[in-house]
C-alpha cells in the first residue's frame, strides 16, 4: 500500500460539512463552550473551544500555552548539562525517556560512546517508563469515560512500585534526571535488579486484572468503538506518532525503524490496530505493555557488568560545531531533540519535538460530529501531557 497515493489532492483540512439544523419551525443556534482551562478532564491547563449543536461537536479549536515557560529559550541560556533536569519537566510522566532522547542527541552531536551496561539500564528504565505511562494513561482514559477513578488508582498502585524503583536508582521518583551524556549518572544500587525483576514478574498479573476489568466491559466497548476514527492517510500526513499512529494500522515504531540504543538485540512485536478508533488506541497501549514486559525480561536476563558512564567531563563541555536530530520512541510518540552547536558551552539552538503537541493536530478532525462526551474521551485517548505540549 502506498499511503501517499491514497491522499486526496489537497489534504490540508478535510471538508467540514456539518450542517446545523435550521428549519423554519425552530430557531436553533450553536452553543459555544470554552472547555478549560479549569475543566476537570482536560489533563492540565488545556482548553477546547467547542461549538455544540445540542450535544454534537460542530467545531473544536484546541487552545494551549497556559503552561508555556519557553523551555527552549531557557536551554539556550544554560549549559548542555544544565538542560538535563529541565527535560524531566517536559513530559513529567516519562522523565527517563526525555533524558534518554536528550542524552542521545548530544551523543550524536559529539560522538560519545555509551558503555554496554548503561545501554541496558537505559532500555530497562525506558520500558519501565512505558509501562507506567501506558498504565496510567489507560486509567486516565477510563476516568474520562466516567469511572470514578478505580482503574486509574489500580494503575497508580502499580506505578508506585515502578516509581519506587526509579527513586532507588536515581534519587527521585518523577524528576529522575538520571541519564548523562555517555551513560548514566550512577550505577544501580545493589539489589535493584532483583527487585526490578520482582516488579516485572508481578506485572502480568496486574495486566490480567486490568484487562478483565476493562476490555470486555460493554459500556467501554460501546462508548469507544467507532468513536474518534483517525484514518490512516491522515494519521501519516499529520505526523501522528506512537501508539496513536499504530492504532491506525501504520507499522512504524522507532525502536524498530531506527534501532537506537540496543533495541535490535531484543525480540518484541509491534501491535497494530485496524480501525483507528478510541478502542484501538486504548487496546494498543495494553498490548504494548505486554511487549514491554517481554523486553524487560530479556534485558534483565542479559544485562552485563561494567562501567555505566564513559569518560565525559562534566565541566566545560563543548561540542564541536554542527547540528544533530535525535529521536526516540517515547511512550507518547516520537520525542525528538534538535541541537545546533556553535562550539560554545551552550547550545545555539535547542528544539524539542513534542509528540503530544503534534498528536493534537488532528483533534478537531477526530471530534467533529461526535458528542461532547466523546470529545473528552478522544482527547483522553490522544495522551497529552501539558508540560510537553506547552513547554
Amino acid at each position, binding site marked *: 500500500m502506498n499511503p501517499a497515493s491514497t491522499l486526496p489532492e489537497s489534504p490540508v483540512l478535510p471538508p467540514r460539512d456539518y450542517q446545523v439544523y435550521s428549519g423554519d419551525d425552530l430557531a436553533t443556534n450553536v452553543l459555544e463552550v470554552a472547555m478549560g482551562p479549569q475543566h*476537570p478532564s482536560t489533563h492540565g491547563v488545556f482548553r477546547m473551544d467547542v461549538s455544540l449543536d445540542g450535544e454534537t461537536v460542530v467545531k473544536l479549536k484546541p487552545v494551549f500555552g497556559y503552561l508555556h515557560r519557553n523551555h527552549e529559550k531557557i536551554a539556550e541560556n544554560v549549559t548542555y548539562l544544565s538542560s538535563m533536569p529541565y527535560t524531566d519537566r517536559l513530559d513529567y510522566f516519562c522523565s527517563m525517556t526525555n533524558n534518554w532522547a536528550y542524552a542521545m542527541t548530544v551523543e550524536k552531536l559529539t560522538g560519545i560512546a555509551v558503555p554496554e551496561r548503561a545501554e541496558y539500564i537505559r532500555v530497562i528504565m525506558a520500558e519501565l517508563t512505558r509501562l507506567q505511562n501506558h498504565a496510567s494513561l489507560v486509567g486516565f482514559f477510563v476516568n474520562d469515560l*466516567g469511572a470514578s477513578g*478505580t482503574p486509574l488508582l489500580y494503575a497508580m498502585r502499580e506505578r508506585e512500585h515502578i516509581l519506587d524503583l526509579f527513586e532507588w536508582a536515581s534519587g527521585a521518583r518523577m524528576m529522575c534526571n538520571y541519564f548523562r551524556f555517555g551513560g548514566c549518572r550512577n550505577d544501580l544500587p545493589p539489589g535493584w535488579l532483583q527487585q526490578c525483576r520482582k516488579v516485572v514478574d508481578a506485572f502480568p498479573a496486574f495486566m490480567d486484572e486490568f484487562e478483565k476489568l476493562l476490555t470486555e466491559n460493554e459500556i467501554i*466497548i460501546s462508548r469507544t*468503538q467507532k468513536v474518534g476514527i483517525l484514518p490512516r492517510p491522515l494519521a501519516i500526513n499529520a505526523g501522528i506518532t506512537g501508539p496513536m499512529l499504530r492504532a491506525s494500522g501504520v507499522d512504524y515504531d522507532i525502536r524498530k525503524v531506527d534501532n537506537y540504543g540496543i533495541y535490535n538485540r531484543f525480540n518484541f512485536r509491534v501491535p497494530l490496530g485496524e*480501525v483507528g478508533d478510541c478502542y484501538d488506541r486504548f487496546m494498543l497501549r495494553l498490548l504494548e505493555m505486554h511487549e514491554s514486559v517481554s523486553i524487560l525480561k530479556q534485558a534483565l536476563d542479559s544485562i552485563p557488568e561494567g562501567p555505566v558512564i564513559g569518560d565525559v567531563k562534566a565541566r566545560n563541555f563543548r561540542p564541536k560545531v554542527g547540528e544533530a536530530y535525535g529521536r526516540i520512541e517515547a511512550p507518547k510518540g516520537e520525542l525528538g531533540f534538535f541541537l545546533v552547536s556553535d562550539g560554545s558551552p551552550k547550545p545555539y539552538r535547542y528544539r524539542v519535538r513534542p509528540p503530544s503537541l503534534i498528536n493534537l493536530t488532528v483533534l478537531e478532525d477526530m471530534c467533529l460530529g461526535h458528542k461532547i462526551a466523546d470529545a473528552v474521551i478522544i482527547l483522553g485517548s490522544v495522551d497529552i501531557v501539558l508540560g510537553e505540549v506547552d513547554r
Partner: protein
Amino acid sequence: MILNTLLDNPDQILVNLFHQGAALLQACPALVIALGILLSTVPLVAIFPACFAITTWLERKGLARIQNRIGPNRAGWFGLLQPMADGIKMLLKEDIVPQTSDRLAHFLAPVLLLIPAFTVLSVLPFSRNMIPAAADTGVILFFALGSISTLPVFMAGWSSHNKYSLLGGMRAIAQMVSYEIPLVLSTVTVVMLTGSLNTVKIVEFQQVTHWIEGSNPALQILGQVLKWNVFTPWGFTGFLIFFISSLAEINRCPFDLPEADSEIVAGHLTEYSGFKYALFFMGEYVSAFAISGLAVTLFLGGWSGPNIRPWWSEDPRALLIPGFVWFFLKMFALILIMIWIRGTLPRLRVDHLMAFAWKFLMPLALINIFIAGAYYYLPHWIGWPAGLIVIYACYEGLGRINRRHLGPKRIYRYA
C-alpha cells in the same frame, strides 16, 4: 407491666410504645393526633439525614477500599466523624450565586428537590404497622411524587445561567422521563400479582402467614425468604429492570450523566456551593433511600426476613428481630451495591442511555408483564422454568439486537 407488654413482641416495640403513649393522653384526643403526626414525620426527617451521613462515610470508605486506598481515617475513629466535618465545612462555605442567575429559581431548586424526596418516604412500610401514610394507592403516589424531582434539577440547570448547567439540566430531563417508563412498567408485574397498589398489602403478599405452624425451624426461616417476589422469573427480571432504572432516576453511576464531572463539570450542580450544594447532595441520597426502599418493598419482601418467635412471648404473631431492622438492612444492601457499581463502571453516553431505555429495558419490561400474567394462570412447576427460559431468550435476543452495530470481538495483529 408496660415493659412486659413492650417485650411481648419485640417486632412491634415501637408501635406498642406509641399505643402506650396514646393511652396516657387519652383525655385529649387532639394531642393523640398531634403525637401521631409527629411520630410519623419527625423520625423520617431525623433518621434519613442520619442515614445520609452514614452513607457518605460508607461510600467514601467503600470506594476507597475498592480502589485500594484507605479512605477517610483522620476525623474520628475510622474516619466516622468525616460526615460531620463535611457538614460543618459545607455550612461555613460561602454561598455563591452567579450574578446573572435567576435568583429565585436558583434558591428554590434545592429546596424543591428535598420536598418530594422526603414525601415519598411516607408510603414505605418500614415494619408491620409502621407506615406513615398507608394509602391504598401507595405505589402510584410514590411515582407521582417522585417524578416531581425532575423539575428542580432542571430549575437548577436553567437558573444557574451556565452552559454546563443547562446541558446537565437537559440531560436530566431526558434521562429521568425516559427511565420513568421501564421503572413503572417493572412495578406493574408486582401490582398485577398482588392485586393491590397498597404497599403494605404488597409486602404481606410476600410473607408466609402461617409459618408458625410449621415444624422445622430451618424451613420456617427459609420460607420467610423464598416467597419474595425476586425469587420468581418475573420478579427477578422486574427487580433488575427496576434497579437499573432507579439508578438512572437518581442519577447514580453509570447513569450520572446530568452531573458527569468529566464532561460537563458538575452539570446542574456547577454553580451551587455551600449549603445549597449540600441540600442537593442530601436530596439525591434521600431519593436513593426512597427508591431502594420501594425496591425492597416491591421485590425483596419489605420488612420480612429470616426470623424466629421469641420463646417467652405468647403473642402468636410476635417476632424477635423487629421488621424495620430487616428493612434497613436490605435498603443498605442495595445502597452498597450502588456504591460497588459506582466503583466499577464508567458512564454511558446520552444516546446509549436513551437507546438502552427504549430499545432494551422497555421491551423487556413489556415482555415481563406478559410472563407475569402467564405465571399467574399456569401452575408454578410449569410457570417457573418456562418463564425463566422465555426471559433468558428475550434477554439474549434483545442484547444481540442492541449490539449488532458493534461487530465481532476485535483481534489484533502484530507487525
